[in-house]
């Protein structure tokens, strides 16, 4: 019997489940190495060379180089692991979140100040989007 995934009809959302964690294992484990200052220095000195030390797919490496967080998540990355990348870049969770929404930083920050993204229209795939 296939594993049940009742969350698959939620729009714009990837639940970090067994399938995602299996394809993302090496991507996420690479992120963990950035919790050491010497590794951050080495990564920022030559990102490509550092990424080549890990058993990641070419797609995963390119997504990291591009700082494409939606792509990293679709390739098994989890946001709390990926946070080590943007933290080492000196960037915030709000910065990273905004890049995933297609909004500018200013638009996203203003949406949050205005009370955040409404759940109305954002609960099920196919609903009309709102905000």
């Amino acid at each position, binding site marked *: 019997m296939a594993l049940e995934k009742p969350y698959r009809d939620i729009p714009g*959302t990837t*639940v970090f489940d067994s399938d995602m964690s299996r394809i993302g294992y090496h991507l996420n484990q690479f992120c963990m190495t950035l919790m050491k200052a010497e590794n951050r220095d080495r990564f920022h000195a030559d990102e490509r060379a550092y990424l080549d030390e890990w058993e990641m797919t070419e797609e995963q490496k390119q997504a990291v180089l591009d700082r494409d967080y*939606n792509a990293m998540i679709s390739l098994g990355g989890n946001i709390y692991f990926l946070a080590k990348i943007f933290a080492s870049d000196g960037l915030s969770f709000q910065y990273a979140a905004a890049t995933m929404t297609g909004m500018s930083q200013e638009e*996203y920050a203003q949406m949050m100040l205005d009370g955040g*993204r409404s759940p109305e229209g954002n*609960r099920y795939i196919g609903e009309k989007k709102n905000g």
Partner: protein
Amino acid sequence: MARITAGVTTSHIPAIGATIDLGKTKEPYWAPLFEGYEFSKKWMAENKPDVVFLVYNDHATAFSLEIVPTFAIGCAAEFQPADEGWGPRPVPVVKGQPDLAWHVAQSVIQDDFDLTIVNKMDVDHGLTVPLSLMFGEPGEWPCTVIPFPVNVVLYPPPSGNRCYQLGKAIRKAVSSFDEDLNVQIWGTGGMSHQLQGPRAGLINKAFDQDFFERLIAEPAELAKKPHVDYVREAGSEGIELVMWLIMRGAMDDDVDEVYRFYHVPASNTAVGHLILENRS
């Protein structure tokens, strides 16, 4: 005997820690949030615990994908603030309470909750931000802390009911510890927020307000809420709220609400905070 006297819930957003550490709490964006914790710091000074049993989630800090314990208990004598990618927070080392931690571990494991024992672990913003919000910036934390990390990062997290029942087992364990200790239990994380994907920024005030009310008045019913409802209604990271049910399970059925605070936004998140006292 040891006893649980109060329960606290609070969000644990990393940007709050950074704001405190950089001395920016008076900035217009942040001031309303920190004003919301002024009462709490005064209350805490008047109701200082000996031990905080601190339920939180590790954010891929102590636990990578190598090992993911569903429930773990920190039994060490001390825990270092973690380097999460921008250097460790400049906050005091967290002192543990190994004798009580081991007592709770033995008791709840024998009550069928299979905890992972942790003897070495760095603690991330999930644990240190609540300490900063409730105690401010002391040279050392005024009490010992038993870190209790819960997996809410890798699906499936424990159910609300499992968390609520675990709280009851923790309460039983604490109340059978011989030493006379004033113990608080804190449940952290939440409230509604989503940090990933095109739906990032989701906030659901109606969900959060309902969660406050039912956590206080009908926690056993609230504990039946399935995982998918948290994700759909409160965002993918809103699932952290199941940890509040561990706190609630460890309190009396009837509690007094001492304080409530709700604020949107802190970075991407709805901040929720409660102080509850046992009525007896």
